[in-house]
């Protein structure tokens, strides 16, 4: 009811506490069907063989029931009942022992930064808002006070099949006043569903559709598979003529989409979704073709043009416009993903960086519910003073417990948690560096020698005051300005060596990260996670903004910086560097190979033979 719902779609989340509608016992409780077991299925008439088979079936039924009740009991411990006083409330689900829990944006939007959450252990916990994804209707909160919270395992939701059993645990109609959640069971009705944005945001892409009852108040709660693994976050349902009650058509944000955004959320950022900068349409013969494209988009720079057929995006085939939107809608802004297009029968694979759908200011405005705009003064709100927004409170208005855990900053939900994640990753990087044994005189310049894959020798020297590279084609040199003084900004970067997009600058920033962490100048934040070819999975990403340049460092779980992605300026073509380390790990600063790509082309592959000192 907070949002202008799209026709026939609503967000069941914020059930109003004051709503008179919901006194009905709407909880679909399981297991009633067990009572309907046939009385021995007429075994008496059918002789001992049949009786034995019935016994076996009965055993299987009882075993299945036991599995189900066990899965539900375990999952129920992870269910969070969110109460936000007069603002309503909703559901959530714990995903880590230190108290991180997922819920919907539209549940926490009225609740604000600080909230109270109940678990089925009968206790109330204080919780603080960590990160928001307004477009994807996701929010991450952190429950406080324990490091051993029961938590659910995020499953691979791409393995879910239509017809799978599933169950929903949550706080429908805010019935869980005793903190015991309600359970409803059903089957998966559809997968890879696309639900248009309700109003301007809250797009549900690639979502799961279930017939388990999802009612107002279930929003933000978990959707579980038969084994009790978390496959989605419930948040939306279709309705038509009966009002806001379940009609057997509910939608959940897939666990895989959640996983894509989890890094951004944990970093306290205001997440944005991705756009290709191009629109697609179905052609007369059923192909998905580019119908329009921005010349400022990365896809354009990589060569995508109008009428090209889009064949695959981010590793998934695109057979319909919906499939395209589904795939795109699950990706965070800034990710670099492969795209396959076909022109004149010939397929081409490119890697494109996806832009954000919104500007930071737009997101901030969405989060504040449009409160940034000047409004007609109302009673209680003096002219020019917008009403207080629960998501951007004054620190002194927060409970004392929460105050040290909240730090406002533009573009972030709660910058405090960015510091937490940044520290976590930097500690890991430092640990890796220490584990490899710091060479004496590390402040000295780093000299790499070796051979290029395409032939010829090379020499790279990285130091605080200068960097140079010797290639068969010549020598290039770059001097970082003001680096030693640790000033916040570089005076400027250049693209040396020519054709690399700024490899020397990128390597200098990499060296500085390894040596100085966040004391190396510029603005370093925890950016989130992104898939890296180097590890195959998601890697933590740190983003350094310095002067006009921007570098993103991918850090693998072992603390190795496995890739650097560098832009000289916001409009420059990237210099992409991938480090490969020896199988035994080796030194953090001594990769086996360094592969450098620029503007979608291979610049060089460096095989390192020697590092001094």
């Amino acid at each position, binding site marked *: 009811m907070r949002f202008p719902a799209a026709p*026939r779609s609503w967000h069941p989340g914020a059930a109003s506490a004051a709503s008179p509608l919901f006194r009905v016992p709407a909880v679909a409780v399981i297991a009633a*069907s*067990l009572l*309907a*077991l*046939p009385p021995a*299925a*007429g075994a008496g008439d059918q002789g001992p063989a049949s009786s034995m*088979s019935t016994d076996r*079936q*009965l055993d*299987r*039924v009882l075993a*299945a*029931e036991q*599995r*189900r009740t066990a899965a539900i009991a375990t999952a129920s411990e992870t269910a969070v009942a969110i109460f936000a006083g007069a603002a309503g409330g909703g559901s959530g689900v714990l995903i880590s022992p230190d108290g991180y829990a997922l819920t919907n944006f539209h549940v926490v939007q009225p609740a604000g930064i600080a909230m109270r959450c109940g678990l089925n252990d009968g206790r109330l916990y204080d919780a603080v808002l960590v990160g928001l994804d307004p477009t994807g209707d996701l929010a991450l909160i952190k429950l406080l006070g324990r490091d051993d919270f029961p938590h659910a395992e995020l499953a*691979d939701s791409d*393995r879910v*099949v*239509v*017809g*799978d*059993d599933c169950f929903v645990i949550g706080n429908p109609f805010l019935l869980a006043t005793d903190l015991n959640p309600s359970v409803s*069971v*059903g*089957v*998966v*009705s*559809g997968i*890879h*569903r*696309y*639900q248009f944005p309700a109003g301007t945001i809250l797009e549900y892409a690639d979502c799961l*559709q279930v*017939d388990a009852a999802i009612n107002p108040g279930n929003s933000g709660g978990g959707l579980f*598979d*038969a*084994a009790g693994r978390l496959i989605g976050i419930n948040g939306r349902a*279709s309705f*038509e*003529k*009966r009002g806001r009650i*379940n*009609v*057997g*058509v509910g939608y959940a944000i897939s666990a895989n989409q959640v996983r894509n955004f989890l890094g951004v959320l944990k970093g306290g950022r205001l997440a944005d979704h991705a756009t290709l900068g191009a629109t697609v349409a179905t052609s007369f013969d*059923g192909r998905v073709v580019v119908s329009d494209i921005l010349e400022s988009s990365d896809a354009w720079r990589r060569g995508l043009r109008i009428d090209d057929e889009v064949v695959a995006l981010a590793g998934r085939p695109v*057979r*319909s*416009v*919906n*499939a395209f939107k589904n795939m795109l809608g699950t990706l965070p802004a800034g990710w670099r993903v492969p795209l396959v297009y076909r022109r004149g029968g010939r397929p081409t694979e490119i890697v494109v960086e996806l832009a954000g759908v919104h500007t930071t200011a737009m997101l901030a405005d969405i989060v504040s519910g449009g409160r940034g705009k000047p409004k007609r003064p109302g009673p209680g709100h003096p002219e020019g003073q917008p009403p207080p927004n629960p998501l951007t409170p004054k620190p002194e208005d927060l409970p004392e417990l929460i105050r040290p855990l909240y730090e406002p900053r533009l573009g972030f939900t709660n910058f405090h948690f960015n510091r937490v994640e940044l520290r976590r990753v930097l500690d890991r990087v430092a640990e890796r560096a220490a584990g490899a044994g710091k060479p004496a005189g590390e402040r000295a310049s780093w000299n790499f020698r070796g051979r290029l894959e395409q032939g010829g020798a090379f020499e790279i020297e990285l130091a605080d005051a200068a960097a140079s590279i010797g290639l068969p084609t010549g020598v290039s040199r770059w001097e970082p300005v003001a680096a030693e003084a640790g000033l916040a900004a570089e005076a400027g970067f250049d693209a040396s060596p020519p054709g690399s997009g700024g490899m020397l600058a990128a390597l200098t920033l990499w060296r500085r990260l390894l040596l100085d962490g966040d004391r190396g100048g510029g603005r370093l934040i925890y950016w989130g996670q992104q898939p890296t070819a180097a590890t195959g999975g998601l890697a933590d990403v740190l983003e350094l903004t310095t002067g006009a340049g921007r570098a993103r460092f991918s850090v693998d779980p072992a603390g190795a910086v496995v890739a650097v992605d560098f832009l000289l300026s916001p409009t420059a073509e990237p210099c992409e560097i991938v480090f490969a380390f020896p199988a035994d790990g080796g030194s953090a600063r001594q990769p086996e190979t360094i592969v450098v790509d620029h503007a979608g082309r291979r610049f060089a592959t460096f095989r390192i033979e020697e590092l001094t000192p």
Partner: protein
Amino acid sequence: MSRGQNFSLPLLAVLAAAVPLCGTTAAAGEATAAGAAAARRVVKLYGAGGIRGLEAYQTGIIVSPTGHIVTALSTALDSEVIDCVLDDGRRYPARLLGADLRRELAVLEIDGENLPCFSLSATASRAAVGSRVLALSNLFGVAVGDERVSLQHGVIAACVPLQARRGSHEAAYRGDVYVLDCTTNNPGSPGGCLTDWQGRFLGMLGKELRAEPSGIWLSYALPADEVARGYEQVLSGKPSSSPTVGPEQDYDPALLGLVLVPDLLDKTPAFVEAVLPESAAAAAGLEPDDLVVAVGDRTITCQRQLRQELGRLLPGDAVRLGVIRGGTIVSTDLGELPPQPEPAVAEEAQ
């Protein structure tokens, strides 16, 4: 991660409900397999409409390998072009072959070959009350292109004669329907497919109607045998199967040989004034002064209702009248309903 974890509900289904139906043992992931098998025989239909309450989309069931599709008769079919999208995303234009107005069932045709289909049988047995069922439909139009129709699960809660309406539209069908405990009364669901947990065809999801006695939105399905009869009726090309026939017309009891007392009041009782010789009424033994109180299972209180109830029947339907004679109720059988003279308005629209 193993799919084998998923058989708790299907097992229950078979044991709890389907034992009288079949002796087979439930297999793991049954709803998954049954749903997938059935979904290949279900199509999404797109036609006219789009204003609130009048959906431009619904569901259909393939019933012949060459492309016959049964669906609910609705305004969505009142279109020059009906788009039919198969489970694999293939798109066909569909033609309206005809309709069974009483069952509100339409038959469409697409140019298909070797299509996966359900075979209909007018002697299909009814599923027991309590049977667990799967419902597949194009609900809310959420599945587009090659996306699969939605799957829901439920239980047959009752098998009872339909009494339903929506506003001024009263359901013409008065026979048995399966009443379901899951909500299949949703936009796009009419014409959807009801199966058991082995994927066997049980019926066709009904229209978006309210139960007449309670006003509650009703989730129901036309049983498979009735679907088969409707389909046969359309194929046989019997009169009244033309989809262009307008609303039901009152039926003149004189065509059965019944002459009633003059209809002077708002609710003139249906007293028989005379019985025409060699008529159906005469053959059934009706007599002057009989008071007609029922047509089939439906009670009537006046002559107007008698004409309306007879008008619901189709030519060829069995006519049974209940009459009060000398203080007792007598049931009479008048054989098949003779056709009415063609109404002047009937036009071919195709």
